[in-house]
């Protein structure tokens, strides 16, 4: 029996636009096992970000079912989904989204504190050390380079030891060298922590490093994930 960390069954998302009902995603189904990596690719506007948002419980589908870490997201309300994410789901964003007014260390402490970790400071420092930012922990985001910011964001995502990590174009804002460094870190950590990875990317070489690939075009899955 396979253990799925994430499962989506016939998930669709529609919105009401000025020209009537608009389908953004149409009957998408996928499965991600523990420790498995899934790349979601596709051109701009194909529905990648919408799909990730639905899979992570940041938004609700118009139809279909999503089971994240064993819980059916459809029966949970907003706060219930938030509770599920706390301590079990990690995020890495294209624009890093570090809180400007917090130091690197405090940014990493943030999800730990939310998850009620006993020693958030110590744990956060350990993770910054792991991504090579031990000497930058008291720096504010604006004092870090793009690559450093993303490494801080990755340690923030892994600090809670998530079962699954969602990464939305994690190298999209970085130069080649920094991209390579961040990608290495991301895959290495996923592997060592046995965390599943859902990676949204335009970068086909990055996608190729994932065990599974899913291509979206105009909200539909093209071909079989695999």
């Amino acid at each position, binding site marked *: 029996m396979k253990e799925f960390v994430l499962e989506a069954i016939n998930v669709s998302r529609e919105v009401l636009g000025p020209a009537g009902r608009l389908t953004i995603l149409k009957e998408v189904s996928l499965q991600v096992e523990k420790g498995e990596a899934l790349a979601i690719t596709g051109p701009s506007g194909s529905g990648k*970000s919408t799909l*990730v*948002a639905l899979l*992570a*419980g*940041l*938004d609700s589908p118009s139809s279909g079912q999503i089971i994240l870490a064993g819980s059916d997201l459809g029966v949970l309300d*907003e*706060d219930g989904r*938030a*509770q*599920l*994410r*706390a*301590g079990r*789901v990690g*995020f890495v*964003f294209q624009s890093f*989204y570090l*809180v400007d*007014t*917090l130091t690197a260390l*405090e940014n990493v402490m*943030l*999800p730990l*504190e*939310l*998850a*009620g970790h006993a020693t958030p400071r110590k744990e956060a420092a350990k993770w910054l050390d792991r991504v090579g930012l031990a000497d930058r922990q008291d720096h504010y985001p604006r004092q870090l380079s793009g690559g450093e910011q993303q490494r801080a964001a990755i340690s923030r995502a892994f600090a809670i030891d998530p079962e699954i990590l969602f990464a*939305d174009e994690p190298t999209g804002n970085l130069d080649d060298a920094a991209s390579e460094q961040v990608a290495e870190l991301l895959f290495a950590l996923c592997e060592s922590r046995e965390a599943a990875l859902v990676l949204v990317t335009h970068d086909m070489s990055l996608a190729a490093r994932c065990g599974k690939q899913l291509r979206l075009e105009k909200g539909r899955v093209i071909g079989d994930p695999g």
Partner: protein
Amino acid sequence: MKFSFLHGSRQFRRDWRSGEMLALGGALLTAVAAVSAVGSFSDRVEDSLQRGAGEVIASDIKLTSRTDIPEIFEEKAASLGLQTARTVTFPTVLFIDGQTLLASVKGVTPGYPLRGTLGLRKDPQAPDLVSVSHGPGRGQAWVDKRLLATLGLTLGDRLDIGELSFTLASVLAYEPDRGGQFFSFSPRIMAHRADIEASGLLGPSSRATFALLAAGSAAEVSGLRDFVEQREQNEIGIVDLPSAQRQVGATVGASTEFIGLASLGTLFIAGIAIAVAARRYVDRRRKQAALLRCFGASGRTVLLIHIQTLLMMGGAWGLVGAAIGFAVQELMTRMLGEVFSLGAGEAGWSAVVISLILGLTLLVGFSVPELARLMRVAPMEVLRRTETPVRPIRDVLWYAVPVLVLILLTVQQAGQTRLVFYVLLGIAAALVAMMGVSLGLLKLMKRAAHGVGVSWRFGLGRLYRDPMSTTFQIAAIGLGLTVLVTLSLVRGQLFDNWEARVPAGSPNFFLANIQDFEKQRLGGFFEERLGETPSFIPMATGRLVTINGRVPTVADYPDPRSASRIEGNLNFSWSRDLPKDNRLVSGEWWQPGTTEAVVSLAKSWAEPLGVAVGDRMGVRVGSQTIDARIMNLREVRWESFNPNFFVLFPPAAFQNAPHTFLSAIRLEEARQDELVALSRQFPTVNIIDIGAILGQVRHLMKVVGVALNLVFGFTLIAGAVVLYAVMQSSHDSRIRDAAMLKVLGCDRRRLLHALNTEFALIALIAGVIAAGAATLTGWLLASQVFNLDYTPGITVIAVSILVSVLIVWLVSRSGVQTALASPPQATLRAR
């Protein structure tokens, strides 16, 4: 909870200098400072007046009368075991080397004061008071410092009062029972009562007020009160602690009420500033809230974090505000100490604490409706900006809570629901009208500026992009400015006008306490020395005993002005015809020779008692009581400076009542020496220098005006904070626009020109609107309230625009500098 506190405090430490936090802090600081300044000041005034209950009347019970209190009462008091003292007080005009000064003389027996102490200074400049619990010795006079300064005298000099000469022994700095006369127009001279009796100034039926003071146990005091009441001597008034405090309270209340209303106005404007700044605070933290939601924080946790952050910020700014407020009230107390007989009132801390609590409530009340939006930020926003959710009506209704609390506070402060309603309606209408006018002016400018250069187009375009927000900021600053300009300029103008309306040749001296037998001699004196024939107006003193058959009590009449009418002496006159400075507003004048029991009242006197034409009013003089029907109400032009009365009867009503006469004369300064001769020939006639009183009123208005401006200054600062908050809300887009212009090759000079255009237009429109509104308010006040001609001055317009430009310039500088300094590449990448 622990997380939200930790995160909240971290946010506060890092974020307190951000524009929206500064705007929130500034609004809170202004509100707390205004409330603590006004609150502490009111507390202090009331405290100084009510400090040591017995001190207010320098005894436990005080019997007052226009004639000397019969011995029998003092004997009774002594037999009951009460301590006693006697005082007599009357106004007189002093003449020293051609200078005249209206002074208030008080003769006291050695036992005075029975409660409290007198504060003396042996050297006018000495800071410390010497407390004594006895009056001056024979041949000595203790005087106000003001008297020495005005007459150029020093301690040790001699001063002639009537037929006696006194040594000026001490400066009298504090007198416990002077609180009842809140506004101390005339400086005090205190001397031994026996000396005053020997001075020849007290005639058999003098206008002086005599008092018998008594102090002892509650039972003894009660025994004396019963004794006086049983004897039904109506000319003797009884002032005990509750009634003294009531009168003092009414005067203090009326004076501080207006200032209190002003500070609440500031609170409303500060509330607007908080709401505006909170909006930007929320907009700038949406991403962060979405991130927290992504990490699993509940909506409640997000809300808690931000409420805690704001409370920490509020606490810090509030403390600074309270300190500023405290300093301002100290300044006001020092300024007004000269006018109010304050003594050294204790500066209390309760008002400061209340202002802090009120400030934080205001902060939470006006920011929570915005913060609630953070609760509902979709975690999805970390991936993509979602549409701002349409704000449910519930969010807007949240504002009803703080607004309602403020309205209730205002009503409680003002005590008049209708007045508050009108004021609020006025503010709301003014705000809407100002927004409408500014929108119109903006459109006009846009049309007029057709074909102008890029800088102008950019400046105008920015204003026009969000007309709602632009017109709101213009209206907010305009409203604050209107209040200040109206007060500081229009008030001055109204007063000048009022003074100018006093007809040339109108009397500048009143002669009071003229006996019937003196009329002919006095008339002769005038004709012979001044070539004038004076008229004599009768005046009697009684008491109001019934209203529509019922004995009135102060408790029945909430209007504080009614206390003096019910409990005090009633001075009235009689007249065959309607006096020339009077106008009937309801009812009819009586037929000449009527013997009917009717009375005519000044409208302003009748209002607090709630009586109208047809009601009945019982007045007692000696043993004679008349229950008269109110036949008409009059409006009196007091500024004519002719003797006028609130209460007038037909001549037949009280013709046998004991009475004296009043007269009024005009004496040019060169001929005022005649008064010396007059006072020697007629020592019991009181000469009242109206010119001096007018001067004192002018001085009083100036000082009170400065204090009021200080309070209204807070309103203007609150308006400026609103402006800052609104400008902050367009700050990001301004920086983005500036960056775009720079990318397109706009140089610094042109960019500065474009940004200055935006702010100059705001300042200009706000200034013009404020000038218009202030002029309109001034005209309304002049025509509807004061019945004066009012000519709007160019100064009002010039000053409004100037102040507006100054404020907008100050407030906009940091924004302009940031926009100019931001490198375009960094700005565009960051957004």
